[in-house]
């Protein structure tokens, strides 16, 4: 089993969710994060004094899936979330040792069905 962790633009959450749901992905976990990367943040002015904002709001989307769907999922997400401008985000892929469904106690791939 594999975990796909995506850092996305907040406004891309809806389209990505839809694309995944069309593809049959049921489970995912979403959280609000802040990040910086090549995208450098911006400068604001409050009462005439500059503030540099170098962490920008992003969405973290986590999907744990059976191994053989990883590539497809990554493709869908990449395509849907891309705008081509700096700040589009990154996807990180990790190995998962085990998954347990709390409700039933099922483990492994079964817990993901």
């Amino acid at each position, binding site marked *: 089993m594999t975990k796909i962790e995506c850092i996305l633009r*907040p406004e891309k*959450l809806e389209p990505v969710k839809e694309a995944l749901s069309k593809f049959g992905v049921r489970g995912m976990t*979403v959280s*609000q994060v*802040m990040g910086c990367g090549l995208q450098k*943040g911006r400068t604001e002015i409050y009462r005439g004094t500059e503030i540099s*904002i*170098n*962490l*920008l*709001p992003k*969405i973290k989307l986590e999907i744990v899936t059976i191994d053989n769907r990883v590539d497809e999922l990554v493709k869908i997400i990449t395509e849907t979330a891309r705008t081509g401008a700096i700040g589009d985000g990154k996807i990180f892929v990790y190995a998962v040792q085990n998954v347990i469904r709390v409700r039933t106690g099922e483990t492994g791939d079964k817990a993901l069905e």
Partner: protein
Amino acid sequence: MRRKIWLTLGLSSIFMLLMAGIAYAGDPTGANMSGKATFDALYSGKPLAEAIGRNAVAINFVWTLITGFLVMFMQAGFALVETGFCRKKNAAHVMMTNFVIYALGIIGFFICGFAFMFGGASGIASLGGTAPLTGIWEIAKGWGIIGYKGFFLNSGGTYDVGVYILFLFQMVFMDTAATIPTGAMAERWKFSAFCIYGLFISMVTYPIFGNWVWGGGWLSKLGVNLGLGHGYIDFAGSSVVHAVGGLTALAGAIVLGPRIGKFNKDGTPNAIPPHDIPMAILGTFILAFGWFGFNPGSTLAGTDLRISVVAVNTMLASATGALAAMLLMWAKFGHPDPSMTANGMLAGLVAITAPCAFVNAWAAALIGAVAGLLVVGSVFFVERVLKVDDPVGAVSVHGTCGLWGVLSLGLFADGTYGDGWGGISGTVRGLFYGDPGQFLAQLIGAATCIVFIFTLSYIFFRVQDKLMGIRVSPEVELAGLDIPEMGIAAYAEEPEPIRS
């Protein structure tokens, strides 16, 4: 761009300076105005005394309306205090009960509440007389129980400016009482059940007890009938409004039971922290502001200059109440607890409401300070001894301190005001100023309030609970009442841009 703005600023300044030169032909102080012309426009042909009297009535109308508006604004204060002290997940629900009670109360009071309470209030001279209000039903001569004129502001010729102004002023008082239980019963009360309660208090309990004290009913006649001082006196409603609200809240909170998680199995309470302290303090400020309508407005007369004393007493008691509660908490727990300090100010205000016109400044300060200590004690008592869950301290603030208020009048009334009150000549004096009868009257009134209001409300809530259930399900309570009951969360937390 910048240049343009500077140019504009510059040019307009010059223009304005030029205009200064223009000669003024108007009347910039009113010195040249003709008062006679206004006299003729308003009172043409009327005798001077008639015109003076009409001016006096107009002053009192202006006073009574504006102070009434201030009292209406207290609804917002209650909404904020209660919502601020509750949890985020119930914020829309608590806000909504406080909002809808205003509308429900208006309708209930319009239908019959006002008629039951003031149907026999008869003439209020300062408002030009409220002639049509002559219907009161008595169980014996002088023992009035309930009024019966003014249904829909229409029956028996009550389409009358004096009647309407009394309705407005009294309606906002009633709604103050009605909104108190929304605090004590918050975070678990079913909205549909709440709506029915709203009609009940505005049409039944409040008007009836109100009739006895302010509508010419039996409690106000204890002086004439039994020789007890000037009869039961509650100047602006420590009991009629606040204790009624607080006792109803107590009954309701008992029937509802505590919120899930409030008490441990061993009966010890848990703290459930408020979600928005600034909101609650803003609400307290609004209440303290509105109280300057509540108490001084209760003269129904701007021509009664005692209003200044009433206002100062109100202010002093609010201050000593807040400080006493703050110092007590600070001394006991090491912090000047903001929520209890806010409760303390309200406690002082509630307590001074009954005696505000009859006592002097030092007594007002003392009454407020006692209320500030009392409210802390009462909160602990309600929570730890009675094991009743009152999220905002409504029972203690309004119930306990309301009762203290009416008693304090019986102790501290200093004999400078109230000549002829309750049909008894001479001014009003409390126990410490030589009139134990007045204190006795106050005791009877307070006891009546407790017995009548608590009993009736308790029965009402019990029966209602049997018939329809007045509490939401545990699932709804755990999830928060906002979405299941209101269909919407108070604060949308869309995953939207957040700032670093």
